[in-house]
């Protein structure tokens, strides 16, 4: 069976579907699909009926569910893994919960609404097998594994135009299904790597959840091991699901899981012994205490147990306490190192300042068991602003919140001294910073702050605050210094990078200006001169009337030669700087390119506005280069360019190459200004705004995607059969990134 082309494959699938519904025979049906068909038909569904999935709840309900859902925190990660499908392949990303209800739909607005109209892929729709029969989301949940479902593999006919890949995500805490990550598009677009991509995304999310879980575990251990060390009885520590994260060295529960009733209570320990699980104060976990197996009331055995442990541990109780303390110190150190490493990794990845500061605040608060952590930036005007805030509470401080640097405050003390400072009590203290802290709920109880020394001054401060409980331990300041140093590094890196980019942008801009000047000079000088000579020659010819034939011929030849020279000069000037770009912007300039292209090109760039000059020039030369490459490839068939105006993009397809049914395409897409998934951030020093993509820290404000896509395989391929050369996109993306620093300056000036 040759199913090498998508159209053919889909026809085969349709025949299989008809056969199955006709007489129940399964022909050329993959096992997971066949299983799902059986399940769906057994549930008694009419496959011909257009049955849109049930809608659960209203929009706000769904949004609340999504925000509370464990996968909600992984949305940026999912977007990062799958943005290629959403941005460049006209797919949508769907996330469902463990019941198959869609919680989040992400993708291009147009595609999203098209797909939603056709198949009801909206937030709140129920895409379980019960709700929508065989489909990627429902079948991935039912089969508890990744699955690709396309065309007539969908049991319900109205979804036959869809091609979807989905993979389930499991909670590392207890192994239960959390939901499904899915990418959905139409069958006309075949991207076989979509299944691998969703699988990779689900693994990445699971790894992310696991690392969060490990951090929670470490925090619980750090907080309670001390208490456990001083407790006379044998104790173990378990998470909310009953997963044991710390056991008594003699082995009270023997690791693994303990089945804890909701809210705590009696538990069964290995060896048939009984124990009791007590919920931890304000934490998602339990302390598990062993009870004597000799029975009786709860109270009495506890006393017996106490006595038993005391007698058995006599003589080595000091050793045990020592052991626990060493363990605790080691755990703390490991935790601190891990937190520092996470921040350092962010910095090495050139994450945005916002992301780095945010992570520092979170790590510091978690590490110290503080209710709030703030990264403050000292401003030259005697104020300070919030660069990052993390809290265990509900109320938050937005980035950029400004407060007067006055009154009683750790930040004030640090700024004055340039050294770490602390306030072990807030009794009788007041000032604007404390007033601000009081608006966050419980007022400050104790604080500690370390200076961020960057750019040769006290740039800012990291402050951790507790609203209750004990004061910070003696060594807290020294533990925070590493974080302050990392923040300082990030700030200097960012400044250096900005300066480098700015200087590159200046060079590029200077070169552009020079080209424009040369073009102008040619136009105003040599070209006008030629025109003038031409007019004089024409006038002379007109005035002379009947001259000898030889003289007339010489004159005509001179006029013709002059016209040729003018033409040559015009070509030269056009290559140096396109005059139409200066006069009319991208739209007319690209039209000229399309008209002059050796390959026939259909172009749709309606709606292009005027952009900063550097951006226009980069885009122009990008398209020009792309067209030249198309022209040098073997094909001379047709070329099409399209792009809806509202997306502000110019999209270009290269000629079809009809060899073996392959259709390489060249697409150029310009997006300016940054779309909704991109937002303005601030330079860490607050001097000038920079553009960063939300969830993606790289500075990439204008996306320029140049990819020759093999329509058959979806793989990126070079257009020409010549030797490999660097991908245009890379060159141009780098160029444009540099240009934009200059361009943005122009915009903000």
């Amino acid at each position, binding site marked *: 069976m040759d199913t090498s082309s998508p159209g053919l494959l889909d026809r085969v699938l349709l025949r299989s579907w008809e056969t199955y519904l006709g007489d129940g025979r399964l022909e050329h049906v993959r096992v997971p699909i066949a299983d799902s068909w059986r399940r769906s038909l057994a549930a008694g569904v009419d496959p011909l009926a257009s049955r849109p999935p049930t809608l659960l709840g209203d929009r706000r309900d769904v949004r609340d569910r999504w925000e509370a859902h464990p996968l909600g925190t992984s949305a940026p990660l999912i977007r990062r893994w799958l943005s290629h499908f959403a941005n460049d392949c006209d797919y949508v990303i769907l996330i469902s919960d463990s019941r198959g209800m869609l919680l989040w739909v992400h993708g291009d607005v147009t595609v999203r609404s098209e797909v939603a109209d056709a198949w009801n892929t909206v937030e709140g729709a129920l895409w379980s097998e019960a709700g929508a029969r065989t489909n990627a989301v429902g079948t991935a949940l039912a089969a508890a594994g990744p699955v690709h479902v396309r065309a007539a593999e969908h049991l319900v006919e109205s979804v036959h135009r869809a091609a979807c890949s989905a993979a389930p995500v499991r909670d590392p805490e207890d192994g239960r299904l959390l939901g499904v990550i899915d990418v959905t598009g139409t069958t006309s677009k075949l991207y076989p790597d979509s299944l691998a991509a969703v699988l990779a995304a689900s693994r990445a999310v699971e790894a992310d959840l696991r690392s969060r879980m490990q951090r929670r575990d470490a925090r619980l251990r750090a907080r309670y091991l001390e208490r456990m060390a001083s407790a006379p009885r044998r104790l173990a520590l378990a998470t909310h699901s009953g997963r044991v994260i710390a056991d008594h060295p003699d082995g009270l529960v023997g690791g693994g899981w303990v089945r804890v009733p909701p809210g705590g209570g009696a538990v069964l320990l290995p060896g048939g012994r009984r124990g009791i699980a007590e919920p931890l104060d304000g934490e998602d976990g339990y302390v598990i205490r062993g009870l004597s197996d000799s029975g009786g009331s709860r109270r009495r055995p506890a006393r017996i147990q106490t006595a038993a442990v005391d007698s058995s541990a006599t003589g080595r109780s000091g050793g045990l306490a020592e052991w626990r303390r060493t363990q605790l110190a080691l755990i703390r150190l490991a935790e601190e190192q891990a937190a520092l490493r996470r921040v350092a990794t962010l910095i090495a990845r050139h994450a945005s300042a916002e992301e780095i500061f945010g992570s520092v605040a979170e790590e510091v608060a978690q590490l110290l068991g503080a209710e709030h952590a703030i990264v403050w930036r000292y401003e030259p005007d005697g104020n300070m602003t919030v660069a990052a805030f993390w809290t265990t509470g509900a109320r938050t401080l937005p980035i950029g919140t400004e407060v007067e640097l006055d009154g009683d405050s750790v930040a004030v003390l640090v700024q004055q001294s340039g050294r770490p400072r602390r306030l072990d009590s807030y009794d009788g203290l007041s000032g604007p910073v404390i007033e601000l802290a009081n608006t966050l709920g419980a007022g400050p109880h104790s604080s500690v702050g370390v200076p961020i020394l960057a750019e040769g001054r006290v740039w800012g401060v990291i402050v951790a605050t507790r609203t209750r409980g004990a004061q910070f331990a003696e060594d807290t300041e020294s533990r925070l210094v590493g974080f302050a140093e990392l923040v300082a590094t990030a700030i200097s890196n960012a400044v250096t990078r900005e300066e480098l980019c700015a200087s590159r942008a200046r060079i590029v801009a200077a070169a552009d200006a020079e080209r424009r000047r040369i073009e102008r000079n040619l136009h105003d000088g040599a070209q006008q001169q030629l025109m003038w000579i*031409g*007019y004089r020659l024409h006038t002379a010819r*007109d005035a002379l009337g009947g001259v000898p034939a030889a003289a007339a011929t010489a004159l005509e030849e001179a006029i013709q030669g002059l016209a040729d020279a*003018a033409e040559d000069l*015009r070509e030269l000037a056009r290559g140096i700087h396109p*005059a139409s770009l200066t006069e*009319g912007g991208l739209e*007319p300039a690209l039209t000229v390119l399309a008209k002059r292209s050796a390959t026939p090109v259909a172009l749709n760039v309606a709606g292009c506005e005027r952009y900063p000059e550097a951006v226009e020039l980069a885009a122009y030369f990008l398209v020009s280069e792309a067209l030249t490459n198309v022209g040098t490839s073997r094909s001379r068939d047709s070329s099409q360019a399209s792009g809806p105006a509202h997306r502000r993009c110019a999209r270009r397809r290269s000629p079809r190459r009809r060899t073996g049914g392959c259709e390489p395409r060249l697409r150029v897409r310009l997006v300016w200004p940054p779309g909704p998934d991109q937002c303005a951030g601030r330079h860490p020093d607050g001097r000038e705004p920079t553009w960063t993509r939300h969830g993606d820290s790289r500075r990439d404000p204008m996306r320029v995607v140049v990819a020759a896509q093999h329509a058959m395989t979806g793989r990126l391929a070079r257009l020409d059969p010549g030797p490999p050369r660097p991908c245009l996109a890379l060159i141009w993306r780098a160029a444009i990134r540099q240009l934009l620093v200059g361009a943005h300056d122009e915009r903000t000036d």
Partner: protein
Amino acid sequence: MIVDDNPDVLRAASELLEGQDMSVVGVATTGDEAASLMEELEPDVMLVDIVLGPESGLDLTRRLERLIDGAGSRTILISTHDEVDFAQLIEASPAIGFLPKSELSAAAIQRLLVQSRDEGR
């Protein structure tokens, strides 16, 4: 009337057209000059260079058309550039046509005027 930012070219072009029995009633090197001359001289046709130094001939065309207030376009755009370079901009402008500077002649202007009148009918 001719509008071009290069005085030498202006003079040479005027002389050429005068030699071909077309009277050049005025010349201008800037937009302001062109606007005031147009109101004063009411020329039958105006040749406007697309690239007028720092000014845009296309903008000037729109400005001049506003001045005559719908009485029918009388502007022909000229340039040392190729027509194809500005095709879309010329199309969008109210001018009746385009003439490459290298092909400037009284006959060519007449042809464009006749063509525009025919189309207008």
